[in-house]
């Protein structure tokens, strides 16, 4: 019965989605005038579309060469603050829910190769992660991939050493990085005119030290994502299902 309902609903859904996608354009010309935006506050119509604006002016307005990074951290930085908060909320929720769980799952010792090998590669993994989030405004990547790489290093240690357990100090990093993000935002409100606005000279695009607050925020995000993901894995590791 349930299967039949599933097939019928999924079938209708599939057909309607395909009919819908048939109406989506196969290609877009971002400079076409049907996409010209209108400023909602004063009503003036621009002669460019929004993505076109990002591609054209990212370098001048933010100092970053990577347009995606500029959008994530500057133009739509508020979304990113929210996104980091979602991750933080989930990590808090995980530790809140698992605080009553039965702990003490027994695990076998890993073999020598895994143990020694993971010690050897851990610094390089952390270094790669840090490289990715520090260079977020220049290359593909940024705080989220970088943070995940850092967390994967700690995950490797947890696999190699069953007793490897991160103390509560990890929540320090979570708190400090999140606080840094909001404080940078508030500094923008105080030193410039609006929340999360850049208040540091943008420098020469393409240099490591450039793009104003983008590298600072990405470093904070990198630390936050790294500590958050490690904390989640750390919490789940010892729980007996």
């Amino acid at each position, binding site marked *: 019965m349930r299967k039949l309902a599933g097939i019928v609903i999924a079938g209708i859904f*599939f057909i309607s989605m395909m009919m819908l996608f048939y109406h989506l354009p196969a290609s877009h010309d971002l400079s076409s005038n049907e996409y010209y935006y209108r400023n909602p506050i004063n009503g003036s119509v621009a002669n460019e579309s929004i*993505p076109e604006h990002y591609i054209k002016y990212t370098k001048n307005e933010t100092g970053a060469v990577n347009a995606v990074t500029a959008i994530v951290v500057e133009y739509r930085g508020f979304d990113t603050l929210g996104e980091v908060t979602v991750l933080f909320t989930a990590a808090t*929720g995980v530790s809140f829910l698992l605080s009553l769980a039965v702990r003490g799952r027994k695990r076998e010792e890993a073999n020598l190769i895994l143990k020694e090998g993971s010690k050897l590669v851990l610094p390089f993994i952390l270094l790669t992660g840090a490289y990715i989030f520090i260079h977020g405004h220049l290359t593909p990547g940024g705080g989220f991939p970088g943070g995940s790489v850092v967390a994967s290093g700690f995950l490797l240690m947890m696999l190699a050493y069953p007793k490897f357990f991160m103390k509560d100090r990890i929540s320090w990093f979570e708190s400090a990085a999140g606080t840094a993000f909001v404080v940078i935002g508030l500094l923008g409100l105080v030193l410039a005119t609006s929340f999360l606005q850049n208040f540091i000279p943008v420098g020469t695009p393409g240099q490591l030290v450039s793009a104003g607050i983008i590298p600072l925020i990405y470093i904070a995000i990198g630390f936050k994502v790294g500590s958050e993901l490690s904390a989640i894995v750390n919490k789940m590791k010892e729980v007996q299902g």
Partner: protein
Amino acid sequence: MIWAMYFAVAVLLTAGLYGVITKKNLMKVFISLSIMETGVNLLLITIGYIPGGTAPIENGNFAKYVDPVPQALVLTAIVIGVSVTALALSLLIMYHSKAGTLEYKEGMKW
């Protein structure tokens, strides 16, 4: 090319939806939801794709760039998906330790 991607989006969304409706094991339901999320992310990327475009990183020679906005949105959507999955897993762990099962046939009625 682009039609193949739209087709893949529809397949992923439909497969996920079918799983959510028919599967009785809660773990499988959440896996199905993850499949749907992947479908939506692919949809966003497809919408931003421009045939022949390159990654929107300025490198001096003016190539045709793809739309950077959907990529930024997908980054957000992926992180949100990961967070929800993490919370779902811990809820399932707790539910399993209380109910002794992950099937919602017994106990959970819709």
